[in-house]
């Protein structure tokens, strides 16, 4: 198969869940295989169990010979807004600057993280994201040993935002990526992101939904016009219902198939 038209695998890696979707490339990508793996573990801080499960899954030849777009759960990602500095001249200096900014927030643990920054026009703030280097070093060889080529590694908040952006306003709104164990939120304007937060949350959804509603009220206090757009699995949306009119729960349109898991998230990156 021509490298230009290699199949692509969307891969979502979270502490308790691995989701894969294989897309056959062409003018219109077609979903040809899906796999949803529940990882039985209580150690959500550790990624070993998830990667072990992924390694077993990738033994199946149905997942070989493709490019991979990987999404890392927000559970393992940290974000920060890095102000623009004219004193920085290249990408390496901007990453180093972002690392210093994140160290001020998160401490010395940043030295164990891989940091990257978003593309931004001169004068605009950049979004910095950090993922444990050990996680990336562990997962890359697992994937690449099966004739798979990693083309993209994105944190969940970024992938979800880009996936839903056609349903988001041009600016002045909050985008929230909600998943089992994590909540990440960003406020965006028409030109940049100016605030980003991520927290680990528990499994008591009554409490977490109230926390989300509190967050929404705080967001609207700052600016009455700021709406909150939430990306979440269907089961969380079903629990939340439509009790709070301040939230826009992002969901597939009626013509699209709805799934209980994160397949829609993977499929949207090809939309």
């Amino acid at each position, binding site marked *: 198969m021509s490298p230009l038209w290699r199949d692509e695998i969307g891969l979502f890696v979270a502490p308790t869940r691995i989701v894969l979707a294989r897309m056959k490339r062409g003018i219109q990508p077609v979903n040809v295989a899906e796999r949803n793996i529940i990882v039985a573990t209580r150690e959500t801080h550790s990624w070993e169990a998830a990667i072990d499960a992924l390694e077993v899954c990738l033994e199946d030849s149905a997942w070989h010979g493709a490019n991979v777009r990987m999404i890392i759960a927000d559970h393992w990602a940290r974000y920060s807004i890095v102000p623009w500095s004219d004193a920085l001249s290249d990408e390496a200096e901007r990453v180093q600057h972002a690392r210093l900014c994140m160290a001020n927030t998160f401490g010395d643990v940043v030295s164990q993280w891989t940091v990257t920054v978003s593309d931004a026009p001169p004068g605009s703030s950049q979004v910095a994201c950090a993922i444990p280097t050990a996680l990336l070093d562990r997962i890359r060889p697992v994937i690449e040993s099966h004739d798979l080529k990693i083309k*993209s590694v994105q944190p969940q908040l970024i992938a979800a935002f880009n996936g839903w*952006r056609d349903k*988001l306003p*041009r600016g002045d709104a909050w985008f929230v990526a909600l998943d089992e164990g994590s909540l990440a939120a960003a406020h*965006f304007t*028409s030109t940049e992101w100016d605030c980003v937060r991520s927290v680990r949350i528990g499994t008591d959804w009554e409490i977490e939904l109230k926390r989300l509603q509190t967050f929404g009220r705080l967001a609207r206090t700052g600016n009455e016009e700021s709406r909150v757009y939430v990306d979440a699995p269907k089961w969380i949306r079903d629990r939340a219902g439509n009790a709070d009119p301040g939230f826009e729960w992002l969901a597939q349109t009626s013509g699209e198939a709805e799934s209980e898991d994160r397949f829609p998230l993977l499929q949207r990156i090809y939309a």
Partner: protein
Amino acid sequence: MSAQPLRLDFQSRPRYGGNRGAIVLLIGTAIAVAAGIQFHALSMKREGLELKLEALESARNLKLGSVAALPSEESVPVVNVLGAPWEILLQELEAASHDEAGDVAVLGVEPDREKSRIRIVAEARNLHTALAYIERLQKSRSLRFPILDSHEIRTEDRDQPVRFQLSADWKTTI
């Protein structure tokens, strides 16, 4: 109206444009090649047209040159002679002869375009007829002040006609 995408990736991005970039590059290259071919074809066509134009101008200059090459002192009389209103003059001489019942025969016409003069040699049955002919020519549109220069009676001829010569101003612009 959709939100601006945020480009953030831990996988180092290739500096080239990916598949779309390759396609755009191919299309751009194809367009550039097509434009180059068309430019070359148009350049060749233009060169051809310029050569044709040059040949036409050369031919035109040659024709003009052949006329211009004549010495002016020779060409001016020729042009003047060719441009003179001969038809009107001859018609009027014929009409005057006809008015005199055909008793006058024009033997020669000699123009002098530089001086706008004309000399006519004719023969009449008698002197009276010759003078009437000259008087008739005074009404001519193309001749002014016709005068009798000389005359002689041809005694050797049995009818003894009068041969006479007259001159007049020739109005070449009527």
